[in-house]
């Protein structure tokens, strides 16, 4: 097989072109971990055996590309041989992984799924089904909590991927309420999407898969259709009240969707949360409220606490009487991420939303590698956004409850500079200090056409249909240039700005 041969002759093509190619032999239940420097990429090929990346199985012999400072791990239950081409900044094999525990968590969740589905199907219980006290088996609705760098997102991915890999047609709902992460949408957003194929990993620009584009995709997790709300900030403490409301909106929509899809409902919900939910400090007393918002909005029945005993105890105390709270181990492979890295990842995500992302393979390797499981990334992962000029009046722009930059004229009559956290404030692009230049805006779904149904804070409850960036402000001519993902008229539409800025 060409993979092996190639590996046995690293001096030939790959090496001469500067790429380092090696084989790693992994014992069962170990993982190969790697970290990439900015601007570098890596190719991993499964030569033989079985392997998975955060729960998504690799196809044998296919070169998988990784880039954008990806920090990843290839795990093997059964042992495998990998061929690795490229120069990671760090790479090693670890025998210490929490995978066995995660697998057990998955099996426990799967128990809940099959029992819930049995009820949907109206089948009688099997004899080996112990009669449990609650007569109505519930699908798993899991809130994953943990401090910074505990690998929450990884846990969520693995649990989701294992569910869709059961061969049962599960389509778990993945919910991301971490606005700093952005999920499939954009940093500053919270969203939910139903997954029916494993989430691939290739780049932190699309950790949870990608939303749909006009390009044909092979893996359905690369063309997701999420429901998204715009919070507008990376930090939860900036406007907890707003986030609370958006979480509830999201929960409402998820509930309605699952009401319509009994079998999808049995697949359950997995929720990734911000690390601030786990950080108890005086400046962070809103977190209990936000956790409560999640618990209520999604009908949480399982709370997983990743490697944090104090939080575990706290959750046991608060919810232990009605929700299963379990502490699960944290992976030793989770890397401490600094603020600079997080900032760059946000940039990668924003760019990925507009332009897509094509990972350039290490020098000397031609095309023919997979990116996030897609076979022709060069054809499908390069996106062309649109840029258009609009008059200031064409697009209505609000900011929510931010008093800092708002000029007095924008305040409601009689109000001092104190503004309610939920107050939508009209932004005048003509005013200096609007901070619109380079701002990321969320374009909202249209409001209710029925005037009698309208209400003041309606813009808080409208979901996002896309994101915009103001790339130019021409104040004298009262026009601005706006970058949009696809074509479409913005006239008469409403957008919300937050504190996130586009970065070139």
């Amino acid at each position, binding site marked *: 097989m060409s993979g092996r041969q190639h590996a046995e002759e690293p001096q030939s093509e790959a090496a001469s072109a500067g790429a380092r190619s090696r084989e790693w032999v992994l014992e069962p239940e170990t993982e190969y971990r790697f970290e990439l420097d900015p601007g570098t990429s890596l190719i991993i090929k499964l030569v033989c055996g079985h392997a998975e990346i955060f729960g998504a199985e690799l196809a044998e012999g296919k070169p998988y590309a990784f880039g954008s400072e990806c920090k990843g791990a290839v795990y093997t239950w059964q042992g495998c041989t990998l061929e690795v081409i490229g120069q990671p900044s760090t*790479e090693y094999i670890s025998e210490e992984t929490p995978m066995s525990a995660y697998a057990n968590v998955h099996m*426990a969740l799967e128990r809940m799924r099959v029992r819930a589905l*049995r009820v949907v199907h109206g089948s009688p219980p099997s004899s080996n089904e112990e009669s449990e006290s609650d007569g109505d088996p519930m699908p798993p609705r899991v809130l994953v909590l943990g401090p910074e760098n505990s690998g929450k997102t990884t846990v969520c991915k693995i649990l989701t991927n294992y569910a869709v890999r059961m061969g049962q*047609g599960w389509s778990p709902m993945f919910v991301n309420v971490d606005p700093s992460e952005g999920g499939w949408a954009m940093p500053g957003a919270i969203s939910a999407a139903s997954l029916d194929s494993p989430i691939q990993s290739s780049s932190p620009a699309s950790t949870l898969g990608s939303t749909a*584009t006009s*390009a*044909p995709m092979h893996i359905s997790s690369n063309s997701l259709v999420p429901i998204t709300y715009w919070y507008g900030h990376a930090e939860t403490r900036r406007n907890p009240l707003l986030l609370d409301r958006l979480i509830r909106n999201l929960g409402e929509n998820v509930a309605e969707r699952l009401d319509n899809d009994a079998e999808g409902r049995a697949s359950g919900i997995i929720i990734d949360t911000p690390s601030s939910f786990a950080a108890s400090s005086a400046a962070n007393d809103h977190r209990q409220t936000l956790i409560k918002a999640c618990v209520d909005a999604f009908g949480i029945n399982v709370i997983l606490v990743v490697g944090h005993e104090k939080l575990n105890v706290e959750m046991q105390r608060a919810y232990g009487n009605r929700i299963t709270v379990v502490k699960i181990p944290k992976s030793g492979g989770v890397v401490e991420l600094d603020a600079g890295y997080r900032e760059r990842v946000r940039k990668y995500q924003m760019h990925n939303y507009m332009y897509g992302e094509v990972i350039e393979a290490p020098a000397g390797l031609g095309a023919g590698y997979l990116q996030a499981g897609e076979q*022709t990334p060069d054809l499908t992962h390069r996106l062309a956004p649109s840029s258009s000029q609009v008059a200031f009046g064409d697009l209505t722009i609000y900011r929510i409850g931010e008093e800092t930059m708002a000029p007095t004229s924008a305040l409601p009559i009689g109000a001092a500079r104190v503004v309610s956290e939920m107050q939508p404030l009209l932004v005048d692009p003509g005013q200096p200090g609007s901070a619109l230049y380079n701002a990321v805006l969320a374009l909202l*779904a249209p409001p209710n056409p029925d005037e009698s149904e309208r209400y003041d804070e309606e813009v808080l409850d409208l979901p996002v249909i896309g994101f915009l960036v103001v790339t130019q402000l021409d104040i004298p001519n009262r026009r601005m240039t706006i970058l949009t993902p696809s074509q479409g008229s913005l006239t008469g539409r409403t957008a919300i700005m937050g504190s996130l800025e586009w970065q070139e």
Partner: protein
Amino acid sequence: MSLYPQSQAYSQAPYPAHGYGQPVPPPAAYHYPPPPVQPVFHVDPSIFRRDYMTRLNELTINSRPVIQSLSMIAQDFTRYAEIVVQCIETHIRRVPAWMKLPAFYLLDAISKNVYDPYARYFTPVVVQLFLETYEQVDQDTRRKMEEMLLTWRTGAPNGRELFGVVPQVAIERQIWSGDQTTASSSRHPSTSTGISAGQVLSELDFVLGQRERALQSNSYDKTAQNHVAVLQQLRKLVQAGVSQPELSQILNQLRALAPPAAVSSQPSPPPAAIPSYSQPPFAAPVPAAYPGPADHVTHPAQVQSPQSPYPSTFDGLKHEPVELPALTSQTLPTPTAAPAASAAPPLVVNNITNLYNALLKAGVVSASATPTGAGATAKAEEATENVDPARAAAREHRKKVLSQKVKLTSTDINKQRSEIVHFLYQRLPTQCKQCGIRFPEGSTAKKNMEDHMDMHFRQNRKAGQAVGRGHSRSWFVSVEDWTHDGAIDGKGKGRANGSRLVTSSAAQAAETAQREAELRAMFVVVPPGDEAKSISCPICKEPLKSEFMEDDEEWVWQNAVRKDDKIYHATCHAEALASKTSLAVRLRNEVSSRSRSLTPERRMRTTPPRVAIPLDGGAKVPGSPSGSPARSSTKRKAEDDETSGERTPPTKKLAAEPA
């Protein structure tokens, strides 16, 4: 100095002699920094040939270690695959008859475990080699070769014939029917005429062997008991002599019964067969066919390990050993404490039922008395009640999952060992080589797999065609669409346990294929003078192929239809039409549901009523240019959309009508 310096992977392999695998320090210290680049070794092809031949000569008896070792070398040196194939062929031809079978087992092992390129290279020679050998060996060996041949039917990683249909048919026809007139290109050619009792018996024994093993592994397995009893009856029946049509009927039933079991008893596709090398490699994944000399059962030894490609891994490490019954449960009736009624997957039972009916018809058993063992009749009746394989599959899965006693407690999470590998890998033996997604066994899954491969093909074609057009991120959908997507999706995408796909997937597939063939047969006559003109389909932008029809003496465009003065590919047009229809169905559902009354509590919530989002018309359906929602592009097919209209429309709670 060793001739073939081993990669560290095999350093622990127990090859003490022959200079094969000099003991290298075990790869224990694998921490950072990584090991240096592996040195490159070149082995001269002629030396390789000589050495492989020498080793082959050691294969005088059916020795598992020797076969393993020779398989490993073949696997490591796929670049010398042709040499390996030549060596084995030469060896089989020149050794005495009693030495041929072990070499065939080697051929079998390499072809199944490494598969590519070996199966490919053996294909041109395997028919002649098999038939020649079959001629020369004794009855006992012939029986063993037949058993091996049966496993070749499903020996390829995709569950198909190991060496392809044609060689398989060629061999089977020769050794069983001996009748040249039965030539047929169908997969199971001999179902119509010229079936010998010997052939039926041979296949019967194969199935019987499998069931007996199921019974051995769990003697309380009532279903297996019944199967064995029925099959034994059937065996007597055939031995006593039955008519051609009956033989044919029995054979058909047997074959309907055999494949899934045969697949499972194979080592899974090559990846599965190459587990960790921490243990003596190949300790487990030896292919199906090495009956040890002491093995008295007629069927090739499959019980000890090949059911699971990984037992050595499990034994050798801290895993708890995997119980055999658990591993066989997917294809063989699940051993369970439950009363036999719910034990067997109806598909299998159903076939046994048919067999049983055949017995009934033949008068071997009577409907009132049950000579085949208590409960057989009752079981047969019960089985016919549960005809929904999807539900049955879900039930099987549920049972298996519930047998894993992992609770969501700290202790269980950290202490238990679940059979996760079984759930993630072994139970899903068919894997897409393109993306790694796995499929369960069975005909439904086969259909899903075919759809899936079809999807890859289409997406690649679309990706290639779209060059230069440029893609962009789609707008997200409206709340309306999103909240009802689940329901629509649930129908369209074909859940493994949904009822849609399984109603009759075979019939559906046949229908689709026929429809496709019909579409492709459509043509449009090229207007005179336009013969040289190249036109392309407005949907896929690919040129229409023109061809000269001899009979009519006309140029035509193939696979073409004319609609509104445009010429489309018939297939493209039908596909577009189908997706339009499904959209219409969906809209109809929405309209009808909108007329329903509002639920007051729904109106109370903070989220405002939803409206569709006409952002230049582009927002409604994101994704692929063809208009089907991109998110379901991996699974949805046109015919799925059509069926979605027959289902209950999604209930709607909202009534906001956009202007």
